[in-house]
């Protein structure tokens, strides 16, 4: 673990945190009481989640006729939500695996929450393929189980089957990877509980930490396994969404049948995934008092990725348009004319604005270095990416080959309720996670503290902590902190 501190590089952790400070900061959210903001967020999330559960129950009881789907548009919000959530679930693995391989140290402050986000998002995503089935209780038919019919297998030609494998693999690897990283941190909480005499925490976290001893041998193995898993997870980042995209690309619906889809979807997924990480970390930073760990540098780095992926997604949109014209196929051509000018033009406009235009604002340093603007933009991108999937699915389906079957899709309250509900469930899980698990990979973060060199190099302006004891501050006051932080970055220039 390199501990080289460079003059030139800005510190990744602000506020002159010592190794012990990190421990305290991270453990605080687990050991201490939740603050007001947490409760407010949690309350809202639970209400949304309950509403979602109600709508899901209604759907299962009555049938998916309670949705707006029809004989022409067989998939709508269900699969839109599915792809959206899967896309969101992408950044986590990218941050933890790909950035690990690329030795991007800044990932350490956010990888834990990004991974948690991934897992919860994939769970939410997984809900939709189940719910969109006419008979969800027979979902196990889509597993290649031995059965009494002898040679009755699943249809390996079907992209939906590939989905089943891709998503379950992705979820498994993500959970393992996430859990592995948590082990030293659980051990930290266990050790603290043992000292403070909290039996419950001692036992629970003792169990969860698998008897982590912190010996060099443990660390060595930990590092090795992390690398191996990162190697395993990296191709998954690309495979999952490629395969999800084949749900469409393997179909013959104009607007779906496109070879550009796999890379286009992966990029879109990273794009939306980073947007969601931004959304979450900016909230978490406030709610969990992590201003020193999640800094504007993190936000800026993520914004860079957003510019990149956003631009690539934009060029994919343009390529699609070009190819549809170039193909000379009237159905393809009409599908894209219809997207832009048909009855769902507004969805297309939202998609184009949010996904192609808005990230371009991040070329301006001022904009990408602002928490508030970044937060707002991340929401825009989340919306835009949802509409991207809506546009692909609904506008392609609603007017395909035979004009006689053309129709419109209009969501019902159940469609909306389930979507809002999954957001609620997601945030409920995430907020619970933030209270129970160490939200920052403290063991790793400790490796990037500048502590060791500070007395030699001097802190200068860049190490000026915003607040010496941000730890004890109420979150409500931290707005000032943000401002001063921004000032701080300005000063640097």
């Amino acid at each position, binding site marked *: 673990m390199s501990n080289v501190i460079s003059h030139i590089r800005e510190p990744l952790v602000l506020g002159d945190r010592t190794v012990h400070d990190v421990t305290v900061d991270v453990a605080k959210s687990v050991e201490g009481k939740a603050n007001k903001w947490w409760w407010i967020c949690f309350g809202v999330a639970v209400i949304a989640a309950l509403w979602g559960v109600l709508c899901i129950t209604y759907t299962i009881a009555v049938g*998916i006729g309670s949705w707006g789907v029809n004989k022409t548009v067989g998939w709508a919000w269900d699969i839109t939500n599915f792809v959206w959530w899967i896309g969101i679930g992408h950044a986590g693995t990218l941050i933890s695996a790909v950035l690990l391989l690329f030795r991007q140290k800044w990932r350490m402050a956010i990888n834990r929450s990004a991974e948690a986000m991934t897992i919860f998002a994939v769970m939410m995503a997984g809900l939709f393929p189940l719910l969109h089935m006419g008979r969800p209780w027979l979902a196990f038919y889509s597993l290649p189980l031995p059965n009494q019919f002898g040679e009755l297998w699943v249809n390996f030609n079907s992209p939906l089957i590939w989905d089943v494998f891709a998503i379950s693999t992705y979820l498994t690897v993500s959970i393992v990877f996430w859990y592995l990283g948590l082990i030293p941190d659980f051990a930290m909480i266990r050790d603290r509980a043992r000292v403070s005499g909290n039996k419950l925490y001692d036992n629970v976290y003792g169990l969860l930490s698998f008897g982590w001893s912190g010996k060099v041998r443990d660390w060595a193995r930990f590092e090795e396994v992390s690398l191996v898993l990162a190697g395993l997870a990296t191709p998954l980042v690309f495979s999952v969404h490629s395969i999800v995209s084949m749900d469409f690309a393997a179909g013959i619906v104009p607007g779906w049948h496109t070879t550009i889809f796999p890379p286009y979807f992966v990029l879109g997924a990273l794009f939306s995934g980073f947007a969601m990480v931004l959304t979450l970390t900016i909230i978490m930073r406030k709610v969990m008092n992590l201003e020193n760990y999640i800094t504007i540098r993190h936000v800026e780095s993520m914004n860079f990725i957003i510019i990149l992926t956003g631009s690539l997604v934009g060029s994919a949109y343009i390529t699609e348009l070009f190819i549809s014209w170039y193909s000379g196929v009237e159905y393809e051509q009409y599908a894209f004319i219809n997207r832009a000018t048909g009855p769902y033009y507004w969805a297309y406009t939202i998609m184009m604005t949010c996904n192609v235009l808005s990230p371009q604002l991040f070329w301006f340093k001022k904009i990408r270095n602002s928490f508030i603007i970044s937060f707002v933009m991340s929401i825009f991108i989340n919306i835009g990416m949802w509409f991207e999937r809506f546009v692909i699915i609904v506008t392609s389906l609603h007017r395909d080959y035979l004009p*006689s079957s053309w129709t419109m899709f209009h969501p019902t309250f159940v469609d909306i309720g389930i979507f809002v509900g999954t957001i609620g469930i997601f945030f409920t899980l995430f907020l619970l996670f933030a209270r129970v698990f160490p939200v920052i990979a403290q063991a790793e973060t400790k490796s990037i503290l500048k502590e060791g060199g500070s007395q030699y190099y001097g802190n200068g302006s860049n190490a000026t902590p915003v607040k010496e004891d941000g730890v004890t501050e109420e979150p409500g006051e931290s707005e000032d902190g943000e401002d001063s932080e921004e000032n701080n970055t300005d000063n640097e220039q």
Partner: protein
Amino acid sequence: MQRTKTYWKSTEELENKEGFIEQQEKEFPEKIPVDEFLGDESLNDSSTSRRDFLKFLGFSVGAATLAACEGPVNKAVPYLNKPEEITPGVANWYASTYIDGRDYCSVLVKTREGRPIHVEGNTLSAVTQGAVNARVQGSVLPLYDSGRYKAPSTAGEETSWSKVDGDIGAKLDKIRGNGGTVRVLSSSLASCSTRAAIHEFLNSFQSADNAGSEGEEVAVDAKHIIYDAVSSYGIRKANAASFGKDVVPSYHFEKARTIVSVGADFLSNWVAPIQSMHQYGESRKVGQEMSMHIQFEANLSLTGSNADTRIPVKPSQYGAILANIYNEIATLKTRPQIPAAQVSGEMISSIIATASQLLQNEGKSILVTGSNNPDHQIIANGINSMLDNYGNTIDLDNPNLTLQSDDAAVGELIADMNAGKVDALLLYNVNPAYSLPNAEEFKSGLKKVGTSISFAGSPDETVALVNHVCPDHHYLEAWNDANPTPGHYSLGQPTIAPLGKTRQAQDSLLLWAGVTASYQDFIKKYWKENVFTKQTTSLTFTSFWNQCLHDGVVGVAAGTDDDAIVENGGGEDETVNSLMSAAVAVQGETAEGDWELQLYEKTGIGDGTHANNPWLQELPDPVSKVCWDNYLTMNPDEMKDRGFNTVLGQVQEADLVEITANGVKQTLPVYPQYGQTKGTLGLALGYGRTAAGKTGNGIGQNAYSMCSFNEQLHYQVGNVSVSGSVGKYQIATTQTHHTMMGREPVRATTLEEFMGDPKAGNPDVTIASSDHKQMKAEELNLWQDFDRPGHHWGMSIDLNACIGCGACVIGCGSENNVSVVGKDEVARSREMQWIRIDRYYSSDTDKHGSLNLQEIPSTSENLEVSFQPIMCQHCNHAPCETVCPVAATTHSNDGLNQMAYNRCVGTKFCLNNCPYKVRRFNWFSYQNDNKFANVNPAQDDMGRMVLNPDVVVRSRGVMEKCSMCIQRIQAGKLTAKKEGRKIVDGEFQTACASACPTHAITFGDKNNPESQVSKNEADPRSYFLLEELDVQPTVNYMIKVRNKDIV
């Protein structure tokens, strides 16, 4: 040293006291006071051991648990004594006759285990030739309507037949004794025996027994009056005037090479639609002999949408057009002209062209007009007789005997009733309280009638007002016969024992007339006397009768003694005079007001008798594609001018307007109907029922009230006013896009072009291969082909023959237990029908000329309508099959795309990936969900009896689609196998193919080069829908050929 340890529980034990040893043997140290808590001494004597008790307990708990676990058990009780003719699982077919007022059709009824479940046309009939329409196909469902009367009733109270017979008998005897007026009001009766039975009934009032107490004759005025809600009285009156024959002639469209219709929707409801549809199909066979069809009309009717040339006109112009056509022909034939009103220059050129077409095919042309105005009909008669069509395309000698309505007599009856002159009124198969424009007058008159009796088998608006209801059988429970045209007889036999305590109306009449014979015997007698005597094939009546029962129909020498034909005078002078006076009357007709209203009947609902039949309600109107409603049809241009919504959809609702016609004000939605003549409105009759039953009540508005009734019923109303929008209303349509968007799902050409080059309108579709070669799509293959050594079932659809009537839709629904889903679900684009008929409007605008491909020149004379039946195309490279994750949809080795319902988990990927969008998803449990209680017949025990046991009823969450009637294929294969022979082409048919009155749908084995489908596929007109996708559909289409080069 070993020591033995001692354990003790108590000191007593340790010390081994006396008494302890005693106690030790007992389980309980003290005696348990069992007696006390059981109390009952007798228990001591009981021999029930604990063991027994546990046994009983175990049994009871087990039994109770098992009983509680019992799932829905459907009992299949085997026959104790199997009836000889019934083999479970094997259908029995019986020949019978569908008679419903004006509709007559010889049918075959499919019964399974004693239940009629499906109706098909009887191909032996020389009159209907196996054709059926949607109403005939759907006629099996009302049999199982749980709303049908199950017993007679008096004053609304259910009672017994003996009681009713006693009451009515007494009342009728009183009339016989004291004199009075008896009226039987019935619909047109195709049945000769029924007419005879009514005659018998009426005669019973005249007989000598009725002599009054003082021996003098008591005058009883007993009459039979025939009333049809939609009357053809005008035709009869006209023929009486022109030719002295008070009949509706038989029209023979199959013999015509020029067909001109002025407002007659003869393919849908006019005169004899079932026969006309078949005949029309015959005359439209592509080739040099193909007929040309010119239609002048206001609404875009089913007939008009099939016309080669359609000229939108106002109803008030019908007379002028007829007169001008007459004059045009008269000029060319140098005959005297008749007075005629002026028409516009544009119109006159159409009329000249029409006249010359008619004249070109003198003796092989036909002109019909749908107006019930005798004057119009007289001019039409004049044209046809000038063209020498009588005896060729129009047969007056063998007239249509199924239409007998007499509007004038109905008017008299109502007057008599209101005057209190009618002592007894028997209503048979009529519902005047609903269908008369002056229904209120009728109702008030009905209150003054001494005894009113209705034979209605199920509730209607009139029944509530009568004294006695003597419910009639459904036609499938009853004996009947029909004599549609002289020399043709059709026998109706019951196919099931009556489901309720109903009695055939004819039986009731005979009983009250004092005839002891049952109606069955009465028919036999009638046939023995009137039919048997005219035939020469059978020696004995028994063999004749058995043959008739078997065949259902018989053709004999046409007699002239039929009581239905009334001839009176009529010479040449009279004919000319009547023509002149008619022409003068017609000349006086002028357009009145801003709007004219043309009332029409829908193909499915007809006159509204069957409003309670959900199959018919859910049948999309062939032209507008609207289900479950009637509405005002208006030209979209005029709607835009008035700010009405012309784009209807799930959330785009139609505007409601208030319409006032004939002093009747109603609120109705406006539907944008392309091709509607400007300044006219269309409105369907048969809706707005209030007492039809749970399905039919409250659908649409009653348009009968807007008809006018002076001498005869008129279905064209002038001086109509329409308000602005007064609200919004959801209309449920199955198709919201009306153009082909520059694509060519329906290919069409003109006859001229086709005769020059049969491939002209049907070029081969090629696609570019990876090495830039243009190849036929089917030559490119992503898949490994596999052999189809046995059969390869296929279908062929002749777009030129398809008239869009929708009989196939009902036939398929009946055969395959397709769920009815109701208006709300249809509005959400979730109809379940496995076969649909796409309807496209097109015009001669350049495909690439206009960017807006949705634009339709709404009143353009070039407006063309194309119908295209679409069912599962059974693609050989089926895109649905590859995407199903659980392999629930697969390909059979005989070429069928199959669904394994119980494997389906309902991902709907197949639906999305189907380029034809023919897959249907069970969004709800239509059989159980309360939402469908009023619409889905499978929701009650009676309604379930109509289900075809060969086809599973699909559960919620399952995808379904056309199976090409695999159950019929399977049955056909088995029959051939058992008989050790090869399958003969056409031996069995899919439900849609057998329902098709014009034989547009052909089913067969594509591996058999001699089969009709193989021949059709090789035809130059053949093409495949969306061929370029290389999904290799099995169903091939044959392009439409329009016979238009003039007009």
